[in-house]
């Protein structure tokens, strides 16, 4: 995590200001990465995030699971050891529907869970450190990566012009006092102002 690309983070407490800043950042040609403590509906349109693709794969797996369940019942009941139960047909498909449906839905649920973890890049991490402890509490974060032709100063100025409450510069030699403080070992007080506990690092540029 040490060699993260440089970026500037702007912190917002106001949801509407944050959403309009995201819109402005995208319009201005930046590549904004947004972090919100709760799901903000409409933000995906502002940032041009496509509707999650995980619907079709889950449906496909449900159908495959249904087929596997039905096949298992056909194999066990009609193929491997046909057993006459009350004179019913060996392959009595109506009575097999329940188990096949449950198998399909279980496969679908597990796939849905796995896909959610995969798409959100969730992995057990015993020491997750975010930019700011209040990112999961009440603070919205707009991260602008520093790209060629931009400087941390220019991005900070842009964020300030877009009414952010606080700014944090990481990775490159930022403005004095804003960043580059080495991580403190434990200390986790919730500070009054977001972004001020600059020793919190990592977490943002995983991807």
């Amino acid at each position, binding site marked *: 995590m040490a060699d993260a690309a440089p970026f500037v983070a702007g912190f917002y407490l*106001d*949801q*509407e*200001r944050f959403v309009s800043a995201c819109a402005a950042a995208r319009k201005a040609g930046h590549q904004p990465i*947004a*972090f*919100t403590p*709760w*799901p*903000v509906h409409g*933000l*995906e349109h502002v940032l041009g995030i496509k509707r*999650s693709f*995980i*619907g079709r794969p*889950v449906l496909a797996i449900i159908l495959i699971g249904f087929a596997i369940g039905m096949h*298992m*019942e056909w194999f*066990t*009941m009609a193929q*491997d*050891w046909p*057993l006459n*139960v*009350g004179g*019913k047909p060996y392959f009595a498909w109506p*009575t*097999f529907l*329940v*188990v096949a449906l*449950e*198998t399909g*839905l*279980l496969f679908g*649920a*597990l796939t*849905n*869970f796995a*896909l959610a*973890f995969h*798409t*959100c*890049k*969730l*992995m*057990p*991490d*015993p*020491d*997750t450190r975010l930019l700011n402890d*209040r*990112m999961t*509490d*009440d603070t919205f974060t707009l991260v602008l990566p520093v790209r060629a032709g931009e400087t941390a100063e220019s991005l900070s100025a842009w964020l300030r012009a877009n009414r952010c409450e606080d700014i944090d510069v990481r990775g490159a030699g930022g403005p004095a006092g804003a960043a580059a403080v080495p991580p403190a070992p*434990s200390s*986790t007080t919730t500070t*009054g102002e977001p972004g001020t506990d600059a020793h919190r690092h990592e*977490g*943002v540029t*995983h991807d």
Partner: protein
Amino acid sequence: MSAPHDLPPLTAKQLTDDVTAPLFKLPNLIWFHGFGLAQMLAVLLFVAIGCYCVEGYGIFGTNQPVNWGNDITTYIFWIGIAVAGTLVSAILFLFRQKWRTAINRSTEGMTVMAIQIAGLFPLIHTGRPWVDFWLLPYANDRHLWPNFKSPIVWDVFALTAYALCSIIFWYLGLVPDFATVRDRATRPWQRRIYSVLAMGWRGRAEDWNHFERAYAQFAWISTPLVLGMHSTIAILAAVGKVSGWHTTIFAPYFVSGAIFGGLAMAIVLLVPMRSMLKLERYITVDHLERLAKVMLATGLLVAYVYVMEFFAAWYTESPYEKHQFLVFRPTGEWAWGFWTMMTCNVAIPQLLWFKAVRRNLVALFVIAIAVNVGMWFERFVIIALSVMHDALPSTWGHYAFTGFDWMILAGSFGLFFTMILVFVRVAPVVSIAELKALLLRRSHRKEEADHG
């Protein structure tokens, strides 16, 4: 009546503080007393199971002709509790009932705990629990397979799928909230644990996009699972040619009964929990009143089925059906159980027509306990009384609890409350992120400035 979104202005920080506060401090004396009592009861369950493994199934009162007694009754009782939690977390979600947000996490916790306890009972009931894996289709030397034409095998699959799905659905919803707890934990060990549980959640907009889709899909998957699971249990009884079981009304009857009893259990849990954890602002009287209304509606459905069963028994002219419903249940040796069921499930819930009763938490709590008692007796009346007097009078017999039956019944409650009491200490009992998204649509910058 005011919905949660009409509450006075509230900050996100305040909400986080209120909901996570119980995780960071020692619980009060009431919690310790409750926990101790629950543990003592839970021990009874494990002792009874231990004795049963050594001695065999004969230690319980179940015997010919009552092959299904206390264990299956209690199994269906706990399944019913679980069903109501999924109603709140999945079905009300699909119906866009926003009020569910405040109680969703706690009722789903109830589901997860109840389903595990329910799952224990059929495993006990098999007689040799150490070979319970025979229930599953696995390749074996003798090419023996479970009979998939039997609803009992359907139930194995339905319950397994439902339990797994409920647990992972619950966990997925908890991930962003674990992240919130992680970032507020001050003790390093606590931070480490929640850090692992939160799986590195950061709240990126793209992540929320996928997360919310997955959450909605879980609701779509859970709904047919839960309805199918409880209908399967109903069909399991209904296909048996036993007077008292052999009715087509069973599937909707069981599902509505499950919601009725499960919401009663939700009220029993929520009323003390909201005051113990100081969450009155989030789990409001309005929420409990809405639960009471759903309870009343499903209670009326159950009452309707009771009446229809009598009518059907009279109308079919089957002497055994008529004996079961018109003679044995209301006047037989277990008539007191039948009338307890009628009083608790039909008479007492009618008090919920009055708004003053619905909003009086003590009254609501007492009614909810009565409904729980009534619903246990309902399952007992359906299951045990039907097989006591079936269509072959020469096989009629009696049923009585043994001490071990009492132990597993009381112990199941002990284990349930133990798990619930642990749950309220280690996980946020209100879904923080979801509730914030609901409550804090407006700008909250001004209030934040006031709070410093």
